[in-house]
């Protein structure tokens, strides 16, 4: 079944990316790969919309420059036709202080001729930003009140 093949392709792609083999991961993508993550780009400017291999590689290099170690757990992986959806639990270790950022991502892949052509991500961005900045955002919002944060 094509679904099993696509499922394995996505798993291989994630292994390559987390191991830092960015060129190999990139080779599993189409030339016109489109990536979109819903992250707030004014705070995480390397995220957002990326188009094409060079643009994607630029974003990946930024991520790898910031984190020394990356690990994934994939509790749910669903495939149908040329699409694969993964619930990914990511563990990224910061180079700056060795603290681990842990977050869940919903990632939706679309494959074309065996390569990944589109990646869409949704995550709990409020929690991710809090972990990245190491700030309790809810407490900060409560303390500063309207129009101050």
């Amino acid at each position: 079944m094509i679904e099993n093949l696509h499922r394995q392709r996505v798993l291989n792609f994630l292994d390559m990316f987390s191991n830092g083999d960015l060129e190999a991961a990139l080779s599993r993508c189409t030339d016109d790969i489109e990536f979109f993550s819903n992250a707030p780009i004014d705070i995480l400017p390397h995220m957002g919309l990326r188009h094409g291999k060079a643009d994607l590689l630029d974003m990946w290099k930024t991520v790898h420059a910031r984190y020394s170690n990356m690990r994934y757990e994939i509790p749910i992986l669903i495939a149908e036709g040329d699409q694969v959806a993964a619930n990914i639990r990511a563990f990224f270790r910061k180079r700056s202080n060795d603290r681990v950022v842990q977050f869940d991502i919903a990632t939706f892949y679309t494959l074309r001729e065996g390569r990944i052509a589109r990646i869409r991500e949704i995550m709990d961005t409020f929690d991710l930003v809090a972990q990245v900045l190491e700030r309790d955002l809810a407490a900060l919002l409560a303390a500063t009140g309207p129009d101050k944060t």
Partner: protein
Amino acid sequence: MTEHSLWRFSRALHRAINDRQYEDLQGLIDEDVDWAVYGPIDMFPFFGARHGKAAVLEVIRQVAENVRVHRFDRESIMLGVDSASSMMRYSLTALDSNKPISLRLAQFAQFRAGRLSSIRILVDTFDLVEQALGRPIHLPRIAS
């Protein structure tokens, strides 16, 4: 061909939220269900984890008391034998403030004997909080 469990559950869920009719939904939730919506529970008390049918029905009642669904579009959907995943965009109204809210979310659902046995929902929460506050949250950029 039998209808996938997701469609029955989806219809019943929207009926519960908008019309506060819970009868259909009750029969579509497993007694041992695991439910999780990732997000800041101190700002949105109906987020977080719930276990068991009674707790899940109660949290859906809380959602119904807080929002009304105007429209939803599925950007992606995948159906497995007893599982489903979708990425959706919702147009809601917050009932306390009458504010419109646009929400992107993804869900991973699993079914047992046609009933929901597990669901995880991920929401673009930073955007949601900004909409709820009615203003952007200004924080430092971490990289250029």
